[in-house]
């Protein structure tokens, strides 16, 4: 009896508040926009029995998905999201790997503190961390003032409201996600392996490329996915730092829903986004699975 309660409560909760909502999203993505409340058509009329269900299904179609392919706003937004996510993942890796490497080479008594320092920003508000860059990157912001003072530039750069600002925002907020898995990998790395490589004729640099990098591969992959996957659907960063020119699918979805009130198209955008995300998610799961097996 108790066992049943234990199973049923979280199970039913997730079905009601996670699974069913997605079924609804899929259903609405197949409906048509209507000037009604709720603003889509058809409505499922259960009072009409079987006939009602049959008419309901016959009214569903893929029109919204066709629409997504015809209006270039959408596929451009998907492509630009993928591009921004990929570039910022690469940048995060470039910045995060040396930090993780530095942490792993630090003396053991320092590592816990360094780890805490990397995690700490994660506990402060995401929104505030993104916001903090507005004052730095704006035309009259601190970065421009500083560069002008240094004499590196003689005219303020436009960084805020460009894709560059979005890259900076993503790298900044997701950096801990890249550092931690790589650090976990490097920390376990047996120092004797590096010594063995040097003993067998490697210079420090070639030992790094031939031993350290391949052995931290799974951490690198995990870190990249942990940045790439959420970056694709990111909303806050492009809307605060990206300005109107930066096209990202999370922002398009939000605007489609709240500004245009086109629920069926918004749902279709969401369904396609999910389909796009499935591939990296499955690859990520595979990598995690492999790591678990390797560590056993």
């Amino acid at each position, binding site marked *: 009896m108790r066992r049943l309660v234990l199973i049923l409560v*979280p199970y039913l909760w997730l079905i009601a508040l996670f699974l069913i909502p997605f079924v609804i*999203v899929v259903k609405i993505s197949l409906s048509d926009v209507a000037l009604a409340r709720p603003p889509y058509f058809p409505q499922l009329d259960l009072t009409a029995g079987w006939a009602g269900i049959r008419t309901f299904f016959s009214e569903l179609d893929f029109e919204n998905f066709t629409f997504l392919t015809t209006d270039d706003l959408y596929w451009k937004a998907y492509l630009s999201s993928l591009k921004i996510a990929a570039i910022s993942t690469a940048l995060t890796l470039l910045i995060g790997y*040396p930090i993780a490497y*530095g942490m792993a080479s630090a*003396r053991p008594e320092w590592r816990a503190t360094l780890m805490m320092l990397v995690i700490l920003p994660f506990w402060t508000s995401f929104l505030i961390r993104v916001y903090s860059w507005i*004052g730095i990157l*704006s035309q009259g912001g601190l970065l421009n003032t500083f560069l002008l003072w240094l004499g590196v530039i003689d005219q303020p750069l436009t960084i805020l409201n460009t894709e560059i600002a979005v890259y900076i925002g993503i790298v900044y907020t997701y950096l801990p996600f890249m550092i931690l898995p790589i650090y976990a990998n490097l920390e376990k790395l047996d120092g004797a392996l590096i010594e063995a490589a040097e003993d067998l004729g490697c210079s420090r640099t070639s030992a790094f490329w031939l031993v350290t990098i391949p052995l931290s591969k799974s951490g690198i992959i995990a870190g990249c996915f942990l940045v790439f996957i959420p970056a694709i659907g990111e909303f806050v960063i492009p809307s605060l730092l990206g300005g109107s020119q930066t096209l990202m699918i999370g922002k398009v979805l939000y605007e489609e829903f709240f500004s245009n009130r086109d629920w069926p198209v918004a*749902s279709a955008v969401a369904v396609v986004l999910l389909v796009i995300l499935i591939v990296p998610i499955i690859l990520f799961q595979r990598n995690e699975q492999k790591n678990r097996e390797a560590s056993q």
Partner: protein
Amino acid sequence: MRRMSGFNIVSLTFGLAFLYLPMLILVIYSFNASKLVTVWAGFSTRWYGELLRNEAFLDAALVTLKVGVISSTLATVLGTMAAFLLVRLGRFSGRTLFSGMIYAPLVMPDVITGLALLLLFIGIDMDRGVTTIVLAHTTFAMCYVSVVVSSRLSSFDTSLEEAALDLGCTPWSAFRLVTLPIIAPAVISGWLLAFTLSLDDLVIASFTAGPSSTTLPMKIFSAVRLGVSPEINALSTLMIGVVAFGVVIFSILSKRNTALKLQEERDAVDGRT
């Protein structure tokens, strides 16, 4: 790993500076008398005063705290149950679906989760407000809690529970007296994680909130969309301060705890009591 070369020191210094400088700047400029970011017009706590007089912010903060406490508590209970399901029950029908539903929200973009929940609430004609935000936050936060708790639970020695049963405990009292105290640190950090996620969330709350239930992130978002605002700087400083204070207290406590434990172990080995 061993050597600490100059390169490592440089990369660590720059990395940490990158992580902390923006926040530090925010804190400094929250004490700026001027409204402009670049102009330093002297030290002032003016913006803190204005912030405290701004009732809209105070209301939003209250809503956020309320949502945070209720949803993270619910999420902790549900997430712990889910963790037991995942770790202890082995194979049951629908396990794959269940673990899928636990892991999917972790990688789901907020916009999709928010949209889906909103469509559900509209579909069942539920009035949007604090309740709907709580339901939404509980749902995604319980998944995080269950991941945290189940990692602790999978390393838990089940013979401890069996010993408790053997000594006359009922299953429930064995859970309460043996299992729960041992997994408590994971449950607590699960709660903290859920609470932080709830305080942090903008997108899902924007979808599921009603007109009378604006949360603090929503308020901040609408304020900063138009650019830097000194009041938000002050608010950010307060929030950063609370987190920093909490972390410092927590690390001091846990350090003292481990030191105490070590000392006790040493005494025990030496045969002192």
